[in-house]
């Protein structure tokens, strides 16, 4: 169970949230101008990063607001939580704006 610090509501259990996949995938500006390959990229291709991954979550049973999260897909550590529309933080310099770490409960082998 991840403990996720909602920017509006504070730390809450993962079960209150829904996952939205890769962040920063913009809707094509001219969809009708895309080739089939480009349209496939937009519809079906997403990064599948092993490591730090920028992704979207929504606090479904709380404020119902979307936000972005930088999370390690191996350790599941949450490295940053930031607002929709903000660029992905540069973790070399950024101050991690969440105090909540993941709680890998039941994470037995």
């Amino acid at each position, binding site marked *: 169970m991840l403990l996720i610090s909602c920017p509006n509501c504070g730390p809450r259990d993962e079960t209150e949230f829904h996952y939205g996949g890769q962040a920063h995938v913009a809707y094509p500006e001219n969809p009708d101008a895309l080739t089939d390959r480009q349209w496939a990229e937009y519809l079906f291709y997403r990064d599948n990063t092993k490591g730090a991954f920028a*992704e979207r979550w929504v606090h479904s049973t709380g404020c119902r607001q979307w936000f972005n999260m930088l999370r390690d897909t191996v*350790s*599941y550590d949450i490295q940053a939580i930031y607002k929709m529309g903000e660029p992905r933080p540069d973790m070399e310099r950024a101050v991690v704006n969440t105090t909540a770490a993941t709680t890998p409960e039941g994470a037995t082998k």
Partner: protein
Amino acid sequence: MSADQLPEHPDFLWRNPEPKASYDAVIVGGGGHGLATAYFLAKNHGMTNIAVLEKGWLAGGNMARNTTIIRSNYLWDESAAIYEHALKLWEILPEELEYDFLFSQRGVMNLAHTLGDVRESVRRVGANKLNGVDAEWLDPQQVKELCPILNISDNIRYPVMGATYQPRAGIAKHDHVAWAFARKCDELGVDIIQNCEVTGFLKDGNRVVGVKTNQGTIHTEKVGLAAAGHSSVLAEMAGFRLPIQSHPLQALVSELHEPVHPTVVMSNHVHVYVSQAHKGELVMGAGVDSYNGYGQRGSFHVIEHQMAAAVELFPIFARAHVLRTWGGIVDTTMDASPIVGLSPVENMFVNCGWGTGGFKGTPAAGLTFAHTIATGTPHELNKPFSLERFETGALIDEHGAAAVAH
């Protein structure tokens, strides 16, 4: 069946050779699919100067972590064809591989709990029959006769309204399947190289000519990727993308019990699937964790949810205990169908995207992937499962159609 009827643990079934400087083909991934591919390359195509590279130990990934369910009751023609071919191979492989991996055709039931479920199920039974897949629709009383411990009363949250039933479906001992393939591969001259992690690829223009590993560089004419949850990582090394997302999928077992569960029961709606292993453990699985993950572990609430479903359907399970839980990394696609075919890199081939259901497909994945690698063109069965389908739009949408929510 009791534990003392299981075959004894064998001596070494394969050599542990040093990698040679070059091979005619290299398979990346020493799980079920990789081993089956190597077996069919050697047996059907005479390619014996080949190697299977495994990052960890043989069949220690999803092959060791799945719930061993084998069935072919998929909705769409393309899926029914490849999974039914797999099931037919499962039926002859113990003899062909000279290894009894305890393929038990005890049947698989897919429960229906809503009117929508019932309609989907009856439709799927019809589609299955048209495709030569054995399928029946059972009413709740027939469900109870086949699996007496199931609660079919109508005072539970999601009463059982019936089930589809595939009598030829069942389970097999996953480790023994891997060992059976590995031993035959070894006999045919295939090098199985464990603890050999691929770190990059050698390319000549857009053609792959070798594999960089932690055990040195291996030159090869052809590369087949069969790395399930880590396929995207390998594809990135090779310079292309795959339309897959890796998710943790958990499973668990109880302590050993007397035989109480004679078949396999899957419920899409309340979401749990249960069988009883030959040794006696109740084996259960459910859905993936929602987030992308490579950590081979998931969240506990997923297990809590599946246990709630299991106890409602099987009230006697309330007194059982969870003995072990674990997770694997499954490679899911948007249409819940696998990708078996060519890649954007010349002489590199991909077998991935089997998601939560790769075990049942093992023999057909091996057969068709071997054909694709050996001849450079897809087999009739895997032609629809190409990477191009995401561009052409010819998806094989088994989401919600394949008798289980993925």
